[in-house]
């Protein structure tokens, strides 16, 4: 089991460019979560999917951020017109909500730097 896979591990974009981050959940896990980590805000929730359907996007910035899960094997987080304040480590997690446990397992993260 390779765990949650995130690509790329590092991404540098110029201000105004688009960034797409990829996440491959653990095989068989039906829930996928996105979080963001910054020095100032700490770890904060963005959005999550269950069985590929968007369930809660309450943490997503209203503009420029979108997430999709086109199939059970990957999810993407897209940031349009990136701004320096978008610089952060973006973490993906997956969970198999069986037997009443919703334990989340995290990937290594993608460090996004917006110049």
């Amino acid at each position: 089991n390779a765990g949650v896979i995130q690509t790329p591990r590092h991404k540098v974009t110029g201000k105004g460019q688009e960034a797409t981050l990829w996440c491959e959940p653990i095989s068989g896990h039906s829930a996928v979560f996105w979080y963001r980590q910054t020095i100032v805000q700490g770890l904060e929730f963005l959005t999550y999917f269950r069985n590929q359907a968007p369930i809660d996007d309450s943490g997503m910035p209203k503009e420029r951020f979108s997430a999709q899960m086109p199939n059970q094997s990957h999810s993407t987080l897209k940031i349009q017109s990136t701004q320096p304040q978008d610089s952060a480590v973006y973490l993906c997690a997956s969970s198999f909500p069986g037997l009443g446990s919703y334990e989340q397992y995290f990937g290594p993260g993608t460090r996004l730097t917006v110049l």
Partner: protein
Amino acid sequence: GDQVEQSPSALSLHEGTGSALRCNFTTTMRAVQWFRKNSRGSLINLFYLASGTKENGRLKSAFDSKERYSTLHIRDAQLEDSGTYFCAAEAASSGSWQLIFGSGTQLTVMP
């Protein structure tokens, strides 16, 4: 406001000693997870608790939903235990499974 208050923010221990980290919750939580951030920056799962206590080696965790807290006890600390520890919890009032994270405890184990 902050729903997960983690303390202390930093902790220094000598090898062989022990201590406890604590998370207090401002609302009722359904479950709690404890993580350690490893040297590569990845979050390593330590415990998942919906109630009661769990123990794994030199680590022991407890979660009391009614009293709104969770603890992580470390005994016989080793140098490799150094790192940042996070608690994270699921709010019972929301139907969401999102984790709300504490701000972390930077643990340094000294020879």
